[in-house]
């Protein structure tokens, strides 16, 4: 589905990257711990998280994450938004909690997909 549809399903606000809403996404990774994201998140995935510090943007950049979805109505601080803009990573904010955000996207066909660091095979779950 497109990022636009994601925005719709999650009733989300676009914080950064309004011009990238036609981006296609198929998979998502939910996490509050950046090392997990680094170890497992697949390139091209959505990152669903409650963290709002600039490191989530750098992590997303390192892994070629498609877009970041902040949960629980969080608005990221200016420095995070600036960095997302600079590194061209769309960022949305939804009022739903991480559980419901994951649930809504899963129910509409977004799958979890994991790419273990250092291995070539991706695991589809």
């Amino acid at each position, binding site marked *: 589905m497109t990022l636009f549809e994601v925005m719709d399903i999650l009733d989300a606000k676009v914080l950064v990257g309004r011009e990238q809403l036609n981006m296609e996404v198929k998979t998502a990774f*939910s996490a*509050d711990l950046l090392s*997990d994201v680094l170890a497992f998140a697949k390139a091209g995935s959505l990152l669903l998280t409650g963290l709002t510090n600039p490191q989530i943007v750098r992590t997303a950049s390192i892994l070629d994450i498609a877009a970041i979805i902040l949960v629980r109505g969080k608005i990221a601080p200016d420095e995070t938004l600036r960095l997302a803009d600079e590194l061209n990573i769309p960022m949305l904010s939804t009022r739903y*909690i991480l*559980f419901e955000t994951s649930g809504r996207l899963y*129910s509409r066909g977004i799958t979890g997909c994991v790419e273990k660091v250092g291995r070539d095979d991706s695991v589809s779950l």
Partner: protein
Amino acid sequence: MMNLSSIVKELNLKVECGKDQLTREVTGGYVGDLLSDVMANSKEGNLWITRQTHQNIVAVASLKELAGIILVQGKEPEEDTLGKASKEGIPILVTNLYTFEVAGKLYKLLS
């Protein structure tokens, strides 16, 4: 709402402890790895999905009266954690799935 034992069966969860605590009703799910966040925002009766395995998760689950804890990525709870959880009557369940997937499946079950 759904009771924990049905959820365990549907999601194929491994029960590490709390086999006799599975009759409780689950009010919803909560996903979080930062304890302060779970403390602030989870609700009584929620089933908590996390990858944290240290014993502090039991204190949080106990204080917030959560229905149980699902550990993801096939992670086994630490010895201390199991001991504490058994004492406090908090079921610890394990799945090989990752957070997004198990949260998705639980959400669908509870909807």
